């Protein structure tokens, strides 16, 4: 096949040398082809991963407490960049989707939620809020089939949630992993990693709703914070 194409190219080369205008056109066409090749190879090397998918509201009982939630700048714009020897570079932007999910999740978990711009409460905020939670992404990792020898792409996100009372006293720290996996996609590894990331965020949310939230409720109760049932109504 390669030999066939090379022979054809040589034949066309002889024909170009007969007319200067055709030769110039050929050069321009060649440059265009080279540019296209460079563009294609550059984009093939970096997998820009778009994370999207359904982020449902959890069906759980609200914890009767008024909480401030602090999303750090790093959490809001979390990105992961990694260069894999066999699979190329990956650029995964999950901050936006993760933030959207956490906003939805925290509103469903607590009676009253307010986003705050500092992990410490001001005197005024201290009067209106019972405690503060600070979610963070500690680690993001992914595996492609070439590395794991399995047929799917895997993603793990290690989250941490810190709970503080209105005076800044630490009430608890929970660390857990959200895991997702997705089959290799026809549209490349990027799409599969994106889908696995979405499932890992979703799994992390399931762990928060079923494991961390009850633990937070217990910690708040033990600290004598916001246990009035009517708050939830």
């Amino acid at each position, binding site marked *: *096949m390669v*030999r*066939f194409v090379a*022979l054809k190219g040589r034949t066309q080369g002889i024909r170009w040398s007969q007319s200067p205008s055709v030769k110039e056109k050929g050069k321009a066409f060649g440059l265009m082809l080279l540019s296209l090749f460079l563009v294609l190879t550059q984009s093939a090397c970096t997998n820009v991963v778009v994370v999207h998918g*359904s982020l*449902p*509201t*959890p*069906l*759980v*009982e609200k914890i009767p407490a008024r909480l401030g939630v602090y999303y750090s700048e790093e959490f809001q714009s979390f990105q992961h960049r990694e260069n894999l020897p066999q699979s190329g570079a990956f650029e995964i932007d999950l901050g936006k989707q993760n933030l959207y999910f956490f906003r939805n999740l925290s509103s469903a978990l607590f009676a009253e939620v307010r986003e705050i711009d500092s992990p410490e409460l001001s005197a005024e905020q201290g009067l209106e809020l019972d405690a503060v939670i600070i979610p963070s992404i500690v680690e993001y990792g992914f595996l492609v089939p070439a590395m794991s020898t*399995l*047929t*799917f792409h895997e993603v793990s996100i290690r989250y941490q949630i810190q709970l503080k009372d209105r005076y800044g006293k630490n009430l608890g720290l929970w660390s857990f992993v959200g*895991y997702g*996996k997705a*089959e290799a996609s026809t549209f490349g590894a990027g799409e599969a990693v994106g889908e696995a990331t979405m499932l890992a965020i*979703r*799994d992390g*949310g*399931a*762990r928060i*709703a*079923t494991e961390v939230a009850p633990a937070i409720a217990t910690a708040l109760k033990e600290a004598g914070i916001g246990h009035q049932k009517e708050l939830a109504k």
Partner: protein
Amino acid sequence: MIIRCTVILCLFLSGCVTSRIEQSRDTVTGIQADEAMVILGRASYNDRETKASFTECIEAELSAGRGAIRLIPQDKFKDDLYPWFEPRTAPASASDLGRLFAEPGVRARIDEAKIRYLAWIEGDTLTTDKGGSMSCTLTTFGGGCFGMSYWEQDASYQASIWDVNQLTSAGKISADASGTSYIAGLVIPIPIIARPGNAACKGLASQLREFILGGN
């Protein structure tokens, strides 16, 4: 004439599949016209899980034709009941349904959608053997493929049906299918494809429909 020839050729080129369907019933079943069923693929954190394409095939078979059953799409069901049917939290057996239904809002949402049965589909299609060799060449004088290669696939699936009203297991249906596919290279490659996964889907869906509508 062309269509008839194509159909005959397709039938001729389809590989042989042998399948076996087995059923065990625990309770009397039946479904009202307004009641629904959900087909759920069992996902796990190991290297094997039921592919979405298989559950979609079952859904397509059950919701069409005579005796169609009203189905709630799996993704919608999981979103509506999030986080209770995620791989980490999904009930492992029908006896766990009682505990799950005690969670606030779960029973109400199931009742609202009029869901009567949950059918958990577990299993996958594996390539158990492959061999042979085939090479294709292309030159300035033409090209062609010579040789033969084959692969054997085994599809093994099980459906566990849970009665949501009675919070018990209604029964189980299993489907096993196996077949060997060939590609023979006689200048042009001629594929003779066996589709055990498709046979298992059709067999399982047909039996599942009979099971749900069949009664006792």
